[in-house]
């Protein structure tokens, strides 16, 4: 006999086979029967078999000794590889794949399988005494299934050479792993073994038959040319599966060999699968469940994947960038289209990188695809990130049944797939809908904020307005209003003091407000201050009053546009409030000749008007009538403070007031001013009185009846008019009123009007002049403010215009065509 050098794998393999054939347990001679069966299983032509037996010397000996057996096996391998049978080739042929034997069912197989199971876990090639069938180490899988030893032998053997690539079963087979590889390398094979083991011998046979059919199906999807035997050489058994796996190129051949692999092996694998389905043991179930859920990753597989992941990305919690993953998976030689699809499925978060879970899923899918599984439309549940079931926990047998494995393994996709699609579909939809929702929420919130903002301000004013005419300007500026409110509150209680003095401009504004406010609608006016809209509404009544006063039209025009800017000014020289301011200033300048005058200024800002008591009002009115400027001021403030209703009984009072003339009014004015702020518009008289008192205050210092009359005339349509006329009798008042279109101007006019009255004041020319100077300054400030407001309005209008033009442009798609 020629010396026979066997590789370790071969050694093991052959010894297993020998044992298998050693039915007599002689450990020396393989029974001819078994050997012949084995040889037949090699699917070689009979003459070749004969030749082999002759070569190995068995013919001579008449039996197969161990060495003969080994030689024969090797020759079989050589023959299967397509090489000529030569004795010399025994040792010359390198990397000869292990001989393949058609699966034969046998208790021996089962035995072997059982044996394999135990050692399988280690993935080592167990070599227990008996069933040391050289299972591909990769098969570390526990072959739980009772692998008929006899059949398993060939199967294993067959499979072995295939380096587990045979595991073309639907299970995501691990890459071809050489038999010596550690468990992870051939999880598939393991699975297969398991199946086999679990299956009974009896099952095997029918299973085999079925699997044969199934196998063919698998074969078809296989892409490799798979020249069966030819593949062998390329794939040396000891080839580390992992390496070949990684370098996908090597894998292809093995994978391709899978189909080509023997039909027996195919059958074997299929058998395994089907067996699994039929299996009843837990293992079987587990196996089958694995089958049923071919997308499940076993521990070994997972470990393998993790190892592969580490080669690319040492950090297990990190990502593999898309380019690296592309290179890696391109080695698998799958078509780019399929790889693209696999990527789509596995990159769950669509970030262009693979986490460990995603990578395992992708790897699993690649393996499955290489083994003939069709790619699912949706990512199977078991492959979803964080959902991979690492344990082959006993699954309900129903699962296996569901899969209906006996059917084509291609249908492996478990029932979970349908659920997956729903999940997957839900994701993008949800994501998109979330986007939409987000946008919606943004819009709604913004709108709400706007409305709330407005509403908050509005209510505040009416109250304050009710309390006292808010001297706030009618400008839309809320800040202004807030300021005014503050002033009001501050001034309410400080009438006698001169907080107003410190804020002459504000006073002027306030004066304007009152003037514009008119007592039309105290509440509304107050609101109007808060919001421009209300202003406009307020303005209208005010304008009406103004019209009465004769200055409204101007105010109206100004107000019309966006914000109710100037407000009540136009109404009339209610600028009595301004006058009051002036008077106040004048009084202060003059050393505040009268305490009443001092009181005026403070009263104006807060619009004390409404708060003033009726009595004093009447008194004031009289005075107001007599005093032009002061009255104007008063009226301006009062209307603002009290969103008044035009009808106030004030008119009557006013008239009475007017009739009463000045003297008594002055003292009353003071009183009015102070209490005025607290009055509500309901007290029509109150505001008027305050107004008048203010006017009177002005008048006192200025000793001008006109202003008072003007002021009072403002809010009150009829009465003020006569008063006003009186005021206007003074030429200066009139022209000044006309000059200022907007309310503010009216106020200013009133203020100015008071000025002339001032000089007329009794015998205080110097002081009056100073006062007038101060008033002029105030007027300047007022005018400056007015100017700025108008500028702002202009800007707003321009912006609106631009936006409208843009919209127009957009609506004309072909304007440019």
């Amino acid at each position, binding site marked *: 006999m020629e010396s026979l050098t066997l590789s370790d794998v071969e050694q093991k393999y052959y010894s297993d086979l020998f044992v298998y054939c050693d039915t007599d347990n002689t450990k020396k001679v393989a029974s001819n029967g078994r050997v012949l069966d084995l040889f037949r299983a090699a699917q070689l032509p009979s003459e070749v078999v004969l030749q082999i037996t002759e070569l190995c010397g068995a013919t001579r000996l008449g039996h197969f000794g161990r060495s003969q057996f080994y030689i024969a096996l090797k020759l079989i391998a050589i023959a299967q590889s397509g090489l000529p049978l030569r004795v010399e080739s025994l040792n010359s042929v390198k990397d000869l794949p292990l001989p393949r034997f058609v699966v034969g069912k046998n208790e021996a197989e089962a035995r072997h399988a059982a044996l394999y199971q135990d050692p399988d876990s280690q993935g080592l090639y167990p070599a227990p005494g008996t069933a040391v069938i050289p299972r591909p180490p990769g098969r570390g899988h526990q072959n739980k299934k009772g692998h008929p030893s006899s059949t398993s032998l060939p199967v294993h053997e067959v499979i072995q050479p295939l380096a587990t690539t045979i595991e073309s079963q639907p299970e995501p087979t691990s890459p071809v792993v050489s038999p010596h590889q550690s468990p992870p390398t051939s999880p598939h094979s393991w699975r297969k073994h398991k199946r086999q083991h679990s299956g009974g011998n009896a099952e095997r046979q029918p299973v085999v038959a079925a699997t044969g059919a199934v196998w063919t199906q698998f074969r078809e999807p296989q892409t490799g040319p798979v020249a069966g035997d030819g593949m062998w050489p390329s794939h040396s058994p000891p080839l580390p599966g992992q390496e070949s796996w990684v370098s996908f190129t090597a894998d292809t051949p093995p994978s391709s060999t899978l189909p080509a692999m023997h039909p027996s092996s195919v059958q074997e694998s299929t058998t395994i699968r089907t067996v699994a389905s039929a299996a009843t043991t837990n293992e079987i179930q587990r196996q089958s469940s694995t089958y049923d859920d071919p997308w499940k990753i076993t521990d070994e597989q997972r470990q393998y994947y993790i190892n592969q992941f580490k080669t690319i990305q040492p950090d297990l919690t990190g990502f593999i960038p898309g380019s690296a993953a*592309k290179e890696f998976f391109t080695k698998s030689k799958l078509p780019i289209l399929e790889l*693209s*699809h696999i*990527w789509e499925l596995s990159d769950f978060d*669509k970030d262009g990188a693979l986490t460990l879970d995603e990578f395992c899923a992708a790897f699993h899918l690649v393996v499955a695809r290489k083994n003939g599984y069709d790619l699912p439309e949706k990512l199977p549940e078991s492959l979803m990130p964080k959902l991979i079931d690492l344990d082959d926990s006993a699954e309900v047998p129903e699962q296996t049944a569901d899969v209906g494995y006996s059917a084509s393994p291609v249908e492996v996709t478990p029932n979970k797939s349908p659920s997956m699609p729903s999940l997957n579909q839900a994701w993008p939809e949800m994501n*998109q809908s979330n986007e939409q929702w987000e946008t919606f929420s943004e819009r709604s919130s913004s709108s709400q904020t706007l409305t709330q903002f407005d509403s908050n301000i509005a209510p505040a004013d009416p109250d304050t307005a009710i309390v006292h005419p808010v001297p706030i300007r009618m400008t839309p500026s809320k800040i202004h209003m807030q300021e005014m409110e503050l002033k009001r509150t501050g001034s309410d209680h400080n009438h006698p003091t001169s907080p107003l003095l410190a804020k002459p401009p504000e006073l002027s504004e306030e004066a304007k407000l009152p003037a514009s406010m008119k007592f039309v609608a105290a509440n509304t006016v107050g609101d109007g201050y808060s919001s421009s809209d209300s202003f406009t509404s307020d303005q209208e009544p005010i304008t009406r009053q103004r019209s009465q006063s004769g200055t409204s039209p101007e105010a109206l025009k100004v107000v019309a546009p966006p914000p109710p800017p100037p407000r009540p000014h136009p109404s009339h020289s209610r600028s009595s409030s301004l006058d009051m301011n002036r008077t106040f200033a004048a009084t202060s300048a003059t050393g505040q000749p009268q305490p009443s005058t001092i009181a005026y200024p403070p009263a104006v800002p807060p619009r004390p008007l409404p708060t003033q008591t009726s009595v004093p009002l009447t008194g004031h009115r009289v005075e107001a009538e007599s005093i032009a400027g002061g009255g104007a001021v008063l009226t301006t403030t009062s209307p603002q403070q009290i969103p008044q209703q035009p009808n106030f009984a004030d008119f009557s009072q006013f008239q009475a007031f007017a009739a009463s003339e000045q003297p008594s009014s002055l003292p009353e004015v003071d009183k009015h001013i102070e209490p005025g702020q607290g009055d509500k518009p309901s007290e029509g008289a109150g505001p008027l009185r305050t107004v008048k008192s203010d006017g009177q205050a002005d008048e006192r210092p200025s000793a001008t009846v006109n202003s008072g009359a003007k002021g009072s005339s403002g809010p009150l349509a009829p009465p003020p008019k006569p008063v006003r006329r009186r005021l206007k009798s003074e030429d200066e008042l009139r022209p000044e009123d006309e000059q200022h279109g907007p309310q503010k101007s009216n106020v200013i006019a009133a203020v100015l009007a008071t000025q002339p009255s001032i000089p007329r004041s009794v015998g205080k020319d110097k002081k009056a002049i100073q006062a007038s100077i101060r008033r002029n300054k105030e007027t300047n400030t007022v005018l400056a403010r007015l100017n700025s407001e108008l500028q702002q309005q202009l800007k707003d209008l321009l912006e609106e215009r631009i936006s409208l033009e843009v919209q127009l442009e957009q609506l004309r*798609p072909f304007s440019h*065509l």
Partner: protein
Amino acid sequence: MAVCIAVIAKENYPLYIRSVPTQNELKFHYTVHTSLDVVEEKISAVGKALGDQRELYLGLLYPTEDYKVYGYVTNSKVKFVIVVDSSNTSLRDNEIRSMFRKLHNSFTDVMCNPFHNPGDTIQSKAFDGIVSGMMVQTA
């Protein structure tokens, strides 16, 4: 619901075009091609004025008697064109915008796939799914 959806590359060749199969697809192809001129015009007109603030959604490009064509262009000059039936008046501008947004998202997912080479036709099943969801569900 769109009648035809097309994705055109920067160089103005189609990456993906799909129509409701019942109709004459060639007609839609032609429509999409002609709409490209309008798209070019729009992006050149708006671009110079606003620079990088150009809006992606171009709006109605091209109304004909049968249908309306909407356009959308990405920052990388990839154009999306949606053709809708004129008789379908219920489609509001917002809906068209949302359709484009979905298309854009799906397109970016396709681009993220390392196995997809920019310039290749889009063969992603996920993208197909999204487009199918937007097409008129007739055939």
